């Protein structure tokens, strides 16, 4: 039996009745003790130690509330609620490790966790109706399933796994060499996974519409967006600001597109500029648009978040390798940045020279 407190359920809005708030009367033990340990600690996706989090949350919230406003009944009630949750939350049945949607975003799996079971559970084998397919995808398709009226194509998961692992290699390879990866996913619900993947790979994200010409006409569209210069330790280096103003817009070194059907302009621009692309290729997508296709279901948010998470982890691993190598002195190939050393003394002298020149002009102009 799972204990649930009514208070916990209805706690989102402030409870007006003060009769519910009795901070001095103890319903439960004040000490939080762990009476039962969960033997299934190890999960496929590492749990974020939720139990510990709530305990610490209750403690910190209690202390925090005492700082903020002791008198307010809402604050006291909330503190009590958190305390109760921490104490009683784990009492009852033991819940087996299971799929929790938020874990794909908070703690995504890494490339070594790719299994066919995982891909199938994420509905990545489900393709589109057979009448909507792109014949170039034939080699990725396992077969046809479904009722007579509406058969759909099923994507081969071993092919998916192989292509996904290859894509992970590409992403980690690019990040190892200091490249910039751009994650793009403009469908609803893809924003969070795109942002997470970009932050893990220290790349860029885009979850809104791609502005046509961002690469081919970068000077116009991205001209006002700021760039910076970083060293091998990813620390910003000052002194290049005036040179950066003249510099062309930055182009990504790899683009990961989670919905290629809507972003064909982006893929075309990448092809024009020799930028390799990684993308989720469903059965109705033209695979020739993408350099490293991943045949999978682009309509399932779970599948998309899984793939984005895995690629983000691959980027993270690449960044870690690059950082380690950089700290030991082994640098990747030099970027063709065309920058000159920042001449700080030169600017100071130039300023003083200009001032003098200005003064001279004034003197000349005075009648």
């Amino acid at each position: 039996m799972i204990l649930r407190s009514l208070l916990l359920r209805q706690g989102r809005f402030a409870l007006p009745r003060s009769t519910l708030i009795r901070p001095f009367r103890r319903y439960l033990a004040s000490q939080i003790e762990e009476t039962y340990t969960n033997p299934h600690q190890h999960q496929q996706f590492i749990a974020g130690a939720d139990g510990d989090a709530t305990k610490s949350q209750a403690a910190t919230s209690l202390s925090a509330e005492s700082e903020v406003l002791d008198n307010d009944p809402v604050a006291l009630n909330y503190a009590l609620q958190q305390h109760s949750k921490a104490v009683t939350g784990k009492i009852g049945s033991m819940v087996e490790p299971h799929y929790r949607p938020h874990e794909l975003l908070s703690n995504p799996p890494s490339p070594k966790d790719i299994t066919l079971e995982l891909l199938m559970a994420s509905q990545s084998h489900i393709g589109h109706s057979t009448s909507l397919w792109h014949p170039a995808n034939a080699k990725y398709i396992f077969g046809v399933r479904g009722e007579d009226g509406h058969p759909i194509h099923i994507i081969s998961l071993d092919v998916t796994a192989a292509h996904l692992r290859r894509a992970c290699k590409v992403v980690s390879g690019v990040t190892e060499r200091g490249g910039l990866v751009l994650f793009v996913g403009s469908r609803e619900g893809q924003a969070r996974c795109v942002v997470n993947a970009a932050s893990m790979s220290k790349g860029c994200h885009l979850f809104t519409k791609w502005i046509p010409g961002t690469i081919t006409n970068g000077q116009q569209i991205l001209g006002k967006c700021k760039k910076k210069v970083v060293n091998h330790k990813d620390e910003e280096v000052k002194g290049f600001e005036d040179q950066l103003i003249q510099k062309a817009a930055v182009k990504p070194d790899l683009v990961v597109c989670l919905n290629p059907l809507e972003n064909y302009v982006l893929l075309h621009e990448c092809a024009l500029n020799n930028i390799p692309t990684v993308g989720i290729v469903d059965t109705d997508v033209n695979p020739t648009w993408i350099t490293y296709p991943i045949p999978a279901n682009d309509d399932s948010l779970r599948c998309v978040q899984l793939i984005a998470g895995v690629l983000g982890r691959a980027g993270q691993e690449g960044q870690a390798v690059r950082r380690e190598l950089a700290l030991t002195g082994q640098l990747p190939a030099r970027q063709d940045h065309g920058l000159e050393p920042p001449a700080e003394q030169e600017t100071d002298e130039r300023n003083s020279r200009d001032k003098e020149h200005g003064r001279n002009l004034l003197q000349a102009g005075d009648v």
Partner: protein
Amino acid sequence: MESPLLRTAFRRAIVACQNPAKRRVGLQPRRYFATPVDAQGGRDDIQAAPPIRFTSEDDQFSQTRPRAELITNDTFARGGRGGGRERGGGGGGDQEVDYRQLLRRIRVVPASPSYFTATPRYTDDLLHLSSLLRKHQLLPMVMPGEAPRVAWKTIDQYKTELAEPIRSKSYNTLLQLLKRLNYIHPSLMPQEITDALEKYKRDVQPHLNVPNPIVVNEYGVAKAVGRRKSSTAQVYIVEGTGECLVNGKSLTEYFGRLHDRESAIWALKATQRIDKYNIWALASGGGTTGQAEAITLGLAKALMAHEPDLKPALRRAGCVTRNPKRVERKKPGKLKARKMPAWVKR
């Protein structure tokens, strides 16, 4: 009859005679010399041009000089003019090595991960607020009507601050987030959210501009101001016996018209308190009716300071609302504000 060769030869001769540019001297293939022949003639050996002097040092081309040129701070600073300084030395050499190493290690990257959205600062703001909301979404909220009133920045103010092309739809999404964060119960509002919201509030919060409350001072006097048309009246009211002075004169002396006298103390008349309070009024501007009505309003406000529960009664009596009517200006083409000149058929 003539051979084609002869025909061609004659044609060429005619062309050559007519067009001096097409004359071929000697019918020999032209040869262009690899190197231009000196006009003066005689010099067979080809000599190189004199060396370009980059610096003013005499030994810049000497063989014994080290082949690697040290790029010091000074050469960059002076633009290559002041090369006479000493090169090398411990400090200069290290700096030069630093610059080479630096150039080898640096790369140009976007300042924000939202670079390719073309509105990076807006996107970063949106993501920051979304993450705050996600973190604190389970905190108790107040009802929307009870949330603290905030004047958020207008889209134009926000756009000017960010200098980015932002659509109103995008800004409305941001506003929705701000309002939702504002609904968190004030007693549990985290400091980070308070700090984050401060940036989006207008500099001046108009609703904070509240008038000073009218209070009864230590002598039992309440002062209020009333206005009507172009008249202003300052009214002082204190508990007393029912005396009334307007600009130093009694009510009957100041207002010749009974209607004006009555309307001036209408607030007391409607609540049957004429004999309970003493009034001292200073009226200025406008005419008699305007001043009388101004005193009405001022008196009502001051009376509410003494007895706030009289407000519904005074409202029913018509003393609480400030009459906004003013004399309408005269317009061109009309005789008065509205009166038109007589219509003429032709």
